């Protein structure tokens, strides 16, 4: 089967940022490409630069080496063709209701206006089962509901790629599991492309169809794996989780044995 050209192409990307006292290299010459309808997961321990990498794809920071291409176009600044879903619950505008939050994104980016924006917003709010809360302000919602609104907002924009930065990390375990299932069923409906950052191996195996493993300090590609197909023997997924676990933690064992 011939591969279609990649939707997102990350080539030799080195990212650095400055803290107060240090210049930190977050990732070093990272390569990967995301195809249309991929559920592409960036996985690694904290400090592997996966969130920084996502921010670079989002256009919030420029690589000092290499390039990021979206549909062949170089990414230079943030834009509505790459909608972000953040981990923080405060990503919704508190002065707008759920419906207004989703519709505002469509209006400001110039995609739709007036009634059309409202209808599209309601359509996606329904997809995340929040129709009853369409006119509620964000502060009255639970954490899980806020994240659902953020996902609805991202999907309503119908971006080329949805960027998710550990969107479920701040949720409790039960809600997290439900949100993962909902995300997968949303994907079954619309087959959107998503780049998903997580530090949970189980989440990566469950959500992703392709997983990029990064090593820490600075982040470098350690492996790019196909995930276990969904709805098959859970033992396969468990086996993959164990394999990833071993790959990620082999360094630490070596480090510790040197001490």
């Amino acid at each position, binding site marked *: 089967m011939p591969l279609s050209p990649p939707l997102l192409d990350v080539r030799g990307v080195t990212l650095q940022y400055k803290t107060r006292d240090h210049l930190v290299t977050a990732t070093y010459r990272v390569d990967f490409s995301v195809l249309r309808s991929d559920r592409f997961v960036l996985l690694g321990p904290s400090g592997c630069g996966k969130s920084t990498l996502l921010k670079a794809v989002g256009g919030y920071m420029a690589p000092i080496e290499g390039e990021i291409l979206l549909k062949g176009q170089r990414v230079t*600044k943030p834009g509505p063709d790459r909608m972000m879903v953040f981990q923080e619950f405060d990503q919704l505008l*508190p*002065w707008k209701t759920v419906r207004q939050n989703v519709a505002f994104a469509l209006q*400001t980016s110039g995609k739709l206006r007036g009634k059309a924006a409202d209808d599209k917003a309601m359509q996606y709010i329904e997809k995340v089962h929040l129709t009853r809360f369409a006119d509620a*302000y964000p502060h009255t919602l639970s954490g899980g509901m806020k994240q659902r609104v953020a996902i609805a907002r991202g999907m309503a924009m119908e971006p080329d790629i949805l960027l998710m930065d550990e969107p479920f990390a701040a949720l409790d375990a039960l809600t997290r599991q439900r949100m993962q299932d909902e995300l997968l069923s949303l994907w079954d409906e619309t087959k959107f492309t998503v780049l998903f950052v997580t530090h949970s191996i189980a989440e990566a195996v469950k959500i992703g169809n392709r997983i990029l493993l990064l090593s820490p300090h600075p982040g470098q590609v350690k492996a790019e794996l196909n995930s276990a197909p969904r709805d098959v023997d859970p033992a396969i997924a468990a086996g993959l989780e164990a394999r990833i676990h071993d790959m990620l933690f082999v360094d630490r064992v070596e480090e510790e044995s040197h001490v």
Partner: protein
Amino acid sequence: MSDDALRPEIIQSPRGAQDFGVVEKPLTPFERLYNQAWLRKTCLIMLLALAWELYARHLDNELLVPTFSATVEAWWSAVVSGVLPARAWASLQVLAIGFGTGVTLAGILTVLAITTRIGTDFLETMTAMLNPLPAIALLPLALIWFGLGIGSLVFVLVHSVLWAVALNTHAGFRGVSQTLRMVGRNYGLSGLPLVVTILIPAAFPSILSGLKIGWAFAWRTLIAAELVFGVASGKGGLGWYIFESKNQLDIPEVFAGLLTIIMIGLLVENVVFRTIENRTVRRWGMQH
């Protein structure tokens, strides 16, 4: 042997609603009345007025402390004769010009401050230098520069409003979460549209408290300035009314003037600002 073997497992099904005594019950009328903030505050004010009345009667010296009833009487006759409303209106007009100009300038300065680094430096230096300077201290200079008239009053008002409002607004802008800024930029917003649609509403609690402080500063400065140099362009304000009454030893009128200042202050705080708060920051859950 492990302890688990000694403790049996417990599985229960929850009871039906009919088993509970009270699930939800309306509060008593007294509890409901007591929950009204305006009612509690009105009671407090009435108590204070009563204390005033009793003390003044006990003192029995109209030139030092007139009774509450005498003050209300003087206030009422000054209102009916149209003197007090005219004076209050004159003060409020000057106040509106000064406050409006100050807030506008503060807005321009803070927008410059958050968009450029040199703007930040400018704002920080200027507020550090000028905020501690009492507006009244500038009045003699203002009189030389702008003459006897509205010009000098507006100048000192702008000075008293500008730095307080700018300081609060700037602090509010800096406090806007990084996530919200990134969300705004994600929509393709930048520059002034980003400020207007994201930063201003996000910083609104700070902006509002800046406006409140600015309002109080302006009001104080205006009355003080009027007391010091009296008439602005032919028609005096409340400060002048107080000054005049004192010169004629109409002490109840002095108290009536002070009462008017307090009443306008209460009205603006509890009606104007409270309404804005209820419709914005409280409704949005940004302030409780």
